[in-house]
């Protein structure tokens, strides 16, 4: 067999078969089936499932049969495009896939700037807040123009697994569906599906890096409210992974607010020490990693600020003590909605671009 390349590393296994020159080349059917078998085995092997991605490209003159065989393997990690709209010179797309972490079909939105047609672009991950899906951000935040101008890919996943059939998942708007809280749940019946932390930090980046013109070394994260909490936690727990972080009205200290207490009790159990690993204020107090530069915007007329759900002062105090650079801006008159996000999104994209395009 000519031109068979096989690279193995711990996280990504990719077998590429590319036939460049000869149109008359035929693949040995037996080898093909062996490859398929190996692929399927790896897929189902627990240790290798996490991050295993098998990509097989076949080009042969008797292709259709073999393609059908292989597509069975591929469909396990395939992306299905749900929608595509041209926007600000680039494309706002929505994809669906079978998530390994979350054990269900998940959608996510990807904005590809014009630059992505020719070069690899850095990636900005946006985590939405309570009750949101992947749609809210792409229709309301108005981030596409700034992303196009700065050549940044924006990925906006959903906020929790959907349609898992767990009892009680749809009972509250601030717990269960649409309220994943970006944790890896340890309590039943949530622990199989509600693994948003791993989804966001592991599965999703790999998916993006393999399927799009994304630069795997340059990514940053941001979010709103619960997503802001998620962005801060992901950054503080993975020093050096994200080039920068910013947040809109984040839940800064979930342990101390009703939302956080309800969610963590449900997902993580009664032992509050397990909650600390998902609390930005606690994580900041013990952060030890590369220098950060955190931008936080908070609406002054935000009802959740006044009802002590957000608690930014706690985070500021912790960052002041630990000398973590934060610029916290209180914007008078603004509330908790996407109107507020829309108003300051370009400032945030600019902040991210400074680090992603450096």
């Amino acid at each position, binding site marked *: 067999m000519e031109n068979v390349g096989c690279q193995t590393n711990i996280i990504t296994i990719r077998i590429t078969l590319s036939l460049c020159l000869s149109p008359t080349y035929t693949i040995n059917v037996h080898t093909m089936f062996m490859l398929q078998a190996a692929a399927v085995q790896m897929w189902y092997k627990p240790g290798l499932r996490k991050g295993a991605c098998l990509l097989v490209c076949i080009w042969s003159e008797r292709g259709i049969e073999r393609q059908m065989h292989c597509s069975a393997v591929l469909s396990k990690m395939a992306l299905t495009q749900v929608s595509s709209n041209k926007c600000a010179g680039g494309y706002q797309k929505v994809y669906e896939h079978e998530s390994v972490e979350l054990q269900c079909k998940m959608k996510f939105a990807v904005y590809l700037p014009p630059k992505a047609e020719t070069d690899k672009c850095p990636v900005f991950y946006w985590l939405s807040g309570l009750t949101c899906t992947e749609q809210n951000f792409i229709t309301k935040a108005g981030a596409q123009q700034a992303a196009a101008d700065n050549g940044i890919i924006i990925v906006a996943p959903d906020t929790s697994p959907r349609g898992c059939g767990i009892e009680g998942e749809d009972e509250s708007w601030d717990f269960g569906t649409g309220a994943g809280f970006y944790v890896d749940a340890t309590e039943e019946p949530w622990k199989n599906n509600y693994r948003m932390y791993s989804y966001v930090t592991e599965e999703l980046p790999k998916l993006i890096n393999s399927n799009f013109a994304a630069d795997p070394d340059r990514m940053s994260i941001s979010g709103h409210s619960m997503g802001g909490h998620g962005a801060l936690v992901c950054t503080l727990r993975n020093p050096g992974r994200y080039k920068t972080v910013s947040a809109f009205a984040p839940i800064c200290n979930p342990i101390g607010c009703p939302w956080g207490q309800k969610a963590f009790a449900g997902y993580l159990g009664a032992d509050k020490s397990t909650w600390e690993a998902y609390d930005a204020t606690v994580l900041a107090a013990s952060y030890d990693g590369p220098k950060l530069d955190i931008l936080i915007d908070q609406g002054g007329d935000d009802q959740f600020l006044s009802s002590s759900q957000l608690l930014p002062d706690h985070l500021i105090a912790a960052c*002041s003590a630990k000398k973590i*650079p*934060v610029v916290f801006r209180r*914007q*008078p008159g603004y509330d908790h909605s996407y109107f507020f996000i829309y108003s300051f999104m370009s400032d945030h994209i600019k902040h991210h671009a400074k680090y992603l395009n*450096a």
Partner: protein
Amino acid sequence: MWSYVGHIEWTSYRFRPAGSPPLGMDPLGSRGVLGVIEECFSAEEQEEADEGITVTRNQLQEKVVEMENFAGHLEEIFLTVEENFGRQEQHLEQHYNEVLQTLSQRYDQRAARLDLDKKSRLEVLYGQLLGCGRTMDSSKELIEAAQGVYRSQDRRLFLKAVMPTIQRIEEFAKEEMDLTLSTALEINTTEDDLSDVKTMMDSISVVPAPSAPVINPQMANSATQTSLRVRWNLFSDDTVEFYELFYRPVLEDLPADNTHGTDVCKVKVKETHCRVTDLLPNAQYELWVMATNTTGISPASEKALYMTVPSPPAIKERGCSSCPEAALIRWDSGNNNPVDSYTVEITEMDTHGAQCGAAEAIVAVPSCQCLIQLQQDRRYMVTVRAVNIGGPSEKSHPLGVSTTGTLFHLLEDTAHPCLSISEDGFTMFYGDEELPLSALAFDDNNFARCVAVLGDLLPVRGQHYWEVAVDDYTEFRVGVAYEDTNRNAYLGATNTSWCMRHILTPTRHKYEFLHDGWSPDLRITVNPMRIGVALDYDGGTLSFYNVELEQHLYTFHCCFQSYVHPCFALDNPGGLTVHNGVEAPGYTRN
């Protein structure tokens, strides 16, 4: 007996000996040069011999050149002498022609006079002759009458006529005969006055007094700060022994009259040019020349006005500022009186401080400042000259200009009296001590309430960047302000200033970004010790950064109506230092 016009310089040529080469070798010895060389065994000696030969060869070559020069000079002298002789010949010829002309003139005059004389005498004599003739006729007639009477037979007629006739004869006899010639027979030849011819003859050998020389107008670039180079010409082929040049300064408030004021100085020279020294710079002088020879002194030439070159200006280092694309240079004139214009010269320097590229000059700068367009990230050397009709002055002391970052100095006369500024002009202190009221001198320009100071104007569009180093406990205000910002107000309180303010409360540090009294609500977790200020005129932004963390703090979006000054203030005792001339870091650029 003749003296030649002009002055020829004689250079003395000293014929030096060829000089002996080192090691006492005789290159022109009997064996000759090559023979000597062959005898040298060691390479060293050979080298030295070679050296010696080279030295001698060079000396001989120099000598050849000198001799050629001498021959040239001799030729020149010969030509000059020939010329002089020719002129002399012409002069003599002319002179003698004149004398001859005069003489012939005189002769003609004299001949004419004699002619006239002769004519008049002849006329007189002719008249006399006629008179005599008439007398003769009348006496003949009388005799005939008497004879007739004597012959008359008629006694009665005789008796009648005899008495009157006798009476007539008696009368006639009584008449005196004037037989003298009415004119002298000799012709009086008056002696002609030939004294002038004599003087003319004498003056052939005597040189006339020269006529007034013609003084030339001032030549460009011939003057220096304290001297003038004056030239003049002879009006004609006069012989001159020496010239006397007179000069005096022309003072504006005194009339140009010889009898008043300044003394006239005099210089005696043999050439037709002179360098007058010991003069004042940027001053006008009146000069005239008189030529003298053995006969006398010429009248004075026309008075010419010359101007010395001005003194060089002095660049005010603290008055200059620079930015990536331009530099503003200010200087002191260096002269009491006004000059016509200034010339600014710019040379690019490379990283080692050597000149690279040609020098550029900006001429006809009318005032003591100049905004020069330059290129980014280079080093330049700038000098200034003052120019008047006498020419340009010497270069001023150079000023090094760097177009990296923006450099400005503080305007110390805008500083609040309580604010003291360091020697180098970049650090300011608000002292603890209470100053006595007398020391608090307020004028229109300095800040009276806010302990503030302005930096020099940033008069160039584009982007500017500077940094301010502060302490943790210093309450400061740092930003920009219009030139006419209210000196009785606090920075940031009016709409003519924008600043970042640090306030120290008992519990925490507070930061405000003030303009027109309003600030956004901002919390900063790490207190900046070094603040980067980035001004963008075109984009209409003023941004502040924490330089150590490369963290953006806040950006004002404003529309600057005119150029602004950087401004600094201290709200409590403490100090801050301005660091400028720093390149704007990448994260401050859009």
